């Protein structure tokens, strides 16, 4: 008998589940009261994401369902009491709204009964019902447009807007922004402008005056992104009372720690840690305190052996920011691991012991491994090896493939210093555009000293990556080699390739390389004449 009593008690205790308004309306009610999910969630003692789930179609159950229903009911009463005038007008917009909005409302997120009573009660919900679902779906994806149930004044033009981007109410279509159709007091959507379909609901990037936003998890937030370079420059100028030379000297002196701070800042939220003190194999260690290590960086030092007869005008071209561009290279992330055998893994980078192939084009193109006097195997870095492999491939076929004997490699990425590089490059471009020599010198000192001291230098004790230093330098040399090859390919005569950034060519180089100060452009260092003039009577 007790069993049946228990069942009876259970039956008596079981109540009908409280009906809840459809999902889209739940959100509209909360937003109508200007309550955030967090506030509501705290009151209901659930997490904000749970509330978000309820507002996108899930249903609560049990005690919390009753609480939620109580809140929704209260919110509805309060809204209808506080805004009696707005409702009928908005109900009209529902009638006047585009007919295709109906099926969208009854779309996947909102179940069948979504429409009727919700839209009768809240006409303004209708217009944004589809957008609201789009916004909910956007929470999971990369969409950051949220449809508002009640129009709020646009932050840009002040008129009512039905969407908010990153928490700022604004018009999605610039055409609507600024057309004086309604006064902000009537909380109405302009009937002439049907709400844009969610598919096209991307915010247009506004140039100038916009608030920069970044992703924070699934949401957006305003970018907390101090421009370290500009701040340092203006602080230095202030400190030295506008004395440009003194400010430049002060900035150059602190370039290394500032570059490290910038690196830290650009790696925030990055996928990989910067490992500053890895174990390094012996090939990367200096043999003596002053001597070099065993890595061959393939620095080009090549001069064409002979020129055809005649007099030529040689232009010495200078590659702008060669080390800055070379920061984009495949850098090993973790500890270097040893491997042997003639295989190259494109996902890894490091240093390799190779026997370089013979180079038969020395008469008109520099050797990609530089001016190496000793024969035999040598340790080269990833950029040099990739250059050789590419040249030995079917597309170029300029040499045999190099023979790899052993390698110290680790999984690599090209993006490790990418934000760092872009930050410096942007600052450099801005400085050039505004003729700002202080920033230009500062940026130059930052990247060049960063590269030169990232190994075993006493001037930068925060980063001991000899391998990266070699790789970045080799990348600069490989980039120069490709420039020489391009000049050769386009019909110019390459005369010299030397150092990191110097290329001497004969011919109409302006057709090949753009001239300027940007990193993808070249500038003229020198123009000189070489050769003996052909005597006019020699032809006779």
């Amino acid at each position, binding site marked *: 008998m007790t069993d049946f009593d228990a069942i009876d008690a259970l039956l008596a205790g079981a109540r009908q589940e409280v009906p809840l308004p459809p999902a889209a309306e739940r959100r509209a009610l909360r937003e109508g009261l200007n309550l955030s999910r967090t506030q509501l969630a705290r009151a209901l003692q659930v997490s904000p994401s749970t509330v978000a789930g309820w507002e996108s179609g899930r249903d609560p159950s049990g005690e919390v369902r009753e609480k939620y229903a109580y809140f929704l009911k209260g919110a509805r009463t309060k809204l209808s009491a506080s805004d009696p005038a707005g409702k009928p007008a908005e109900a009209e917009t529902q009638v006047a709204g585009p007919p295709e909005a109906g099926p969208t409302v009854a779309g996947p997120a909102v179940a069948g009964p979504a429409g009727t009573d919700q839209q009768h009660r809240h006409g303004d919900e209708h217009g944004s019902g589809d957008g609201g679902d789009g916004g909910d779906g956007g929470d999971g994806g990369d969409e950051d447009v949220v449809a508002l149930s009640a129009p709020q004044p646009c932050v840009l033009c002040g008129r009512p807007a039905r969407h908010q981007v990153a928490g700022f109410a604004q018009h999605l279509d610039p055409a609507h922004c600024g057309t004086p159709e309604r006064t902000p007091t009537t909380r109405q959507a302009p009937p002439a402008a049907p709400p844009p379909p969610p598919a096209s609901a991307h915010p247009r990037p506004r140039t100038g005056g916009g608030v920069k936003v970044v992703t924070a998890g699934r949401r957006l937030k305003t970018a907390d992104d101090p421009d370290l370079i500009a701040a340092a420059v203006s602080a230095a100028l202030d400190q030295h009372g506008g004395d440009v030379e003194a400010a430049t000297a002060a900035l150059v002196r602190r370039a290394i720690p500032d570059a490290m701070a910038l690196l830290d800042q650009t790696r925030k939220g990055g996928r990989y*840690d910067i490992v*500053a*003190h890895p174990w390094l194999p012996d090939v990367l260690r200096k043999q003596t*305190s002053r001597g070099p290590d065993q890595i061959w960086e393939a620095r080009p030092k090549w001069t064409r052996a002979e020129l055809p007869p005649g007099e030529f005008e040689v232009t010495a071209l200078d590659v702008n920011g060669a080390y800055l561009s070379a920061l984009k290279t495949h850098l090993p992330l973790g*500890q270097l691991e040893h491997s042997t055998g003639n295989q190259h893994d494109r996902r890894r980078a490091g240093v390799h012991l190779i026997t370089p192939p013979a180079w038969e084009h020395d008469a008109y193109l520099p050797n990609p491994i530089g001016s190496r006097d000793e024969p035999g195997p040598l340790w080269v870095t990833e950029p040099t090896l990739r250059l050789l492999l590419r040249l030995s491939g079917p597309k170029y076929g300029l040499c045999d493939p190099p023979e790899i004997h052993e390698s110290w490699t680790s999984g690599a990425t090209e993006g490790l210093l990418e934000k760092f590089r872009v930050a410096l490059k942007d600052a450099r471009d801005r400085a050039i555009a505004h003729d700002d020599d202080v920033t230009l010198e500062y940026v130059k000192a930052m990247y060049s000293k960063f590269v030169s001291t990232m190994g075993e230098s006493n001037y930068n004790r925060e980063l001991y990556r000899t391998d990266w230093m070699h790789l970045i330098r080799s990348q600069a040399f490989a980039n120069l080699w490709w420039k020489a090859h391009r000049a050769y390919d386009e019909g110019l005569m390459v005369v010299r390739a030397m150092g990191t950034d110097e290329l001497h060519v004969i011919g109409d180089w302006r057709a090949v390389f753009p001239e300027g100060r940007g990193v993808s452009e070249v500038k003229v260092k020198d123009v000189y004449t070489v050769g003996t003039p052909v005597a006019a009577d020699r032809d006779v």
Partner: protein
Amino acid sequence: MPERTLNFGAYGARGIKGYEAVARQLDALAGFVATPVTARRGLLARLRYLTRSDQSRQAARAAGLTVTDRTLRAWLRGERNPSNRNLERIETAYRAVRRQNVARYLVARLNREGRGTRVEFHPLNQSQVLRPRQRVVAYRTLNVRRWDRIVEAWAAGDAQALDDAWIYDAVVDLGSEWGQYEYVTNIGFAA
């Protein structure tokens, strides 16, 4: 996770004790004379360092270089050459005195007025461990603020004290899995 590994390397893991890696790095930071003691140049450099002042002579004597001043003079002038055993003594005494002398400055640099130094823990090498026995041991970093005991133990050349200081002043701050970092491939930091 046992806190201390009893039988390290039984399944093929390779690494060194954390304190050994620390001592190695501190030695690298201390900057000894690079030329070996067997070369004339290296010997002279060490002897000059050990006989620079009365204090350093005393320190050298305390560190085990118990030869008379007359012998030292003879070595310095090149009239006599130290025996192999004495070369060894010179080397150990030089290292001990040098460590004691730089310890103060190293502590100051590493503590950085309380801001501490970032230390990288490169986990042990499991490449020779059978796959089912391999464990995920991640690369970790830690800011170590108090270096006094660590450097003191290193300067005194006391391996046990250095081990204790390293474990209890630094490694335990890694959290409950600190035992995984008792053995490492490398400890990276700079001063």
